[in-house]
């Protein structure tokens, strides 16, 4: 993928053809990424996809085997971490146990030799931002996990810079706390109008936080763009499947041509196809998000029969596992949606999907969408 430089503003980060190998394992390769200034860039990747290595290269803790790193349009590939001027929130909190919370937060300013009288208001500011003013005199071992994380974020944010790197900072926190911190982080980034690079393996976190998502898979960025685009029109099956909760459905099908018409056939349904195949192989996969499958018929939709295998009631919504002529499908129903009929296990139902929401992939890449039923 070519770097898509944002020509209107400044480029905060540009990674050009990065590669990193540990022993025989090629962790990153052919990695390109461009982050315009002021973006909240979430690097999304499953565990062990190379996110942490990318952060280590970006912060300068390790050097790439190949490629260049530009920060603020300057080549920093060979600069030490301290010279890159990055605010950093490490994955494990790494709060110094021999410092108080106050000393921990003030640490980056202390290292930058900021005069003492300027440090205090800054500490108060970030502590206020994260709601930890009352903890300043404590030692890290007197804090709960969530409090430690807030302190670590405060220490990362206190640095006066325009670029912050947060390495999966909310991993392992409980759900409620994460939601609060997600709000805080998003607000903070918008308020400071700075660039955030944030790694995570959580799809919901990515979608909630990001102004741009880069999907890291197999050591390279396979796709990046705004969350809405990635969600509704993913270019790769990995993106469709991983940036989602619950997981998206992938249906195996075959592509055939009759005259000037192209058709997709699956065990469950048959649909038209509009798009350009990128190879001669007839095997395709049709991706559909769970919430796009509806129970009952809707005008203009593709329909098929399915049997309900399992129901998971999550209170606000229900996850249904369906079997449509041998094809396993997952769908989500909102409990307050009056237009949806109630279903029971083993019940036979008619399901419908809007054809233009069915994305057709060939060899993992998007080649088009379905058209009306045939």
């Amino acid at each position, binding site marked *: 993928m070519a770097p898509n430089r944002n020509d209107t503003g400044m480029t905060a980060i540009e990674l050009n053809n990065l590669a990193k190998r540990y022993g025989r394992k090629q962790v990153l390769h052919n990695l390109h990424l461009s982050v315009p200034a002021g973006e909240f860039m979430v690097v999304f990747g499953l565990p062990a996809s190379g996110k942490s290595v990318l952060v280590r290269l970006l912060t300068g803790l390790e050097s790439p085997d190949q490629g260049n790193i530009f920060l603020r349009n300057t080549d920093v590939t060979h600069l030490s*971490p*301290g010279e890159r001027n990055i605010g950093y929130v490490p994955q*494990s909190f*790494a709060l110094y146990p021999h410092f108080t919370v106050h000393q921990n937060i003030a640490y980056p300013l202390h290292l930058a030799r900021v005069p003492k009288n300027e440090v205090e208001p800054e500490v108060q500011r970030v502590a206020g931002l994260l709601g930890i003013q009352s903890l300043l005199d404590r030692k890290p071992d007197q804090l709960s996990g969530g409090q430690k994380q807030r302190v670590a974020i405060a220490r990362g944010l206190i640095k006066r810079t325009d670029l912050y790197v947060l390495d999966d900072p909310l991993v392992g926190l409980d759900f409620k706390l994460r939601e609060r911190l997600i709000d805080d982080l998003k607000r903070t980034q918008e308020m400071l109008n700075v660039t955030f690079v944030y790694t995570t393996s959580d799809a919901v976190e990515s979608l909630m936080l990001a102004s741009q998502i880069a999907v890291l898979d197999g050591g390279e960025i396979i796709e990046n763009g705004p969350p809405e685009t990635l969600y509704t029109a993913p270019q790769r099956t990995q993106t469709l499947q991983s940036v989602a909760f619950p997981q998206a459905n992938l249906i195996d099908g075959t592509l055939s041509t009759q005259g000037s018409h192209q058709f997709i056939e699956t065990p469950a349904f048959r649909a038209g196809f509009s798009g350009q195949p990128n190879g001669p192989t007839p095997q395709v996969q049709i991706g559909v998000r769970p919430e796009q499958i509806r129970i009952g018929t809707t005008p203009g939709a593709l329909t098929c029969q399915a049997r309900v295998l399992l129901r998971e009631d999550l209170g606000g919504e229900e996850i249904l596992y369906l079997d449509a002529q041998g094809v396993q499908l997952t769908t989500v129903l909102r409990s307050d949606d009056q237009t949806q009929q109630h279903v029971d296990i083993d019940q036979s139902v008619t399901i419908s999907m809007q054809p233009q929401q069915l994305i057709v992939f060939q060899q993992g890449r998007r080649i088009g969408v379905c058209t009306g039923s045939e």
Partner: protein
Amino acid sequence: MQPSRTRIAFYYSLLWLVALLFFLPVFWILMASFKTPDDILAVPPQFLFQPTLDNIVSMLTRPNTIPYFINSLFLSILSVTLALVVSFLAAYTLSRYKFRATNFLMFLILSTRMVPAAAFVVPIFQMYNAFQWRNQFGVLMLYTMFSIPFSLWILKGFIDGVSPRYDETGFVNGASRLHVMFRVVLPQVRPGLIAAFIFNLIFVWNEFLLNFILGGPGTQMIPYALAVGLTDSGGNVDWAFVASLSTGYVLLPTLMIFFFQKYLLVGMTFGTVRGEV
């Protein structure tokens, strides 16, 4: 199942019995240092007696006693301190820069302490004679070298327990390597430093053979004084002197062990069992 109270009482009385049995000779020496020579050798042993400070006064007024104490303190404290500085730098390096043979190198360094002093005292003596190192500096260096292996092992265990993420957070915020070593890592391994200090101090404090062979006026320590002052001119054991010198001699290690017990365990397990420290 909780053992019954009588069982616990039985176990504890057994423990006390064994402990007192082992403490008896020490107790005898401590008592003897306050007894007159006649009381010391009285049969049956005297438990109630008129204490006297005569032994201690006469021991301290012997011409070389005070210098022996000074030598012991000087050599043990300084050599162990120097060893800690060297060991901390080495332990940080071995912990953070992992190269192929680290474990083997650690083993080699420790192996210098596996040979009993009696086995290498002759070559060391000849070497020290040849290089004219049989002075304060030479003996100090010997004890420093002597203290490095255990200190290195203890400190490496501790530094391995300090996550490199701490170092990295410092680096990204612009800290130098030295800052990270001394301001980030060092404060976190303080228990290891104390453990290594006490553990090696006791070793050097108790060292006799090398001191006896290599030592001179500026380097002879208390164990040497005990050995050469054991008998009086008539060939009899001078119990009053031995007892009073021993009492003064065990004072420092006893106090240290008493106040820093928990660190001693750390030392004996090379930092792998950290307990409450």
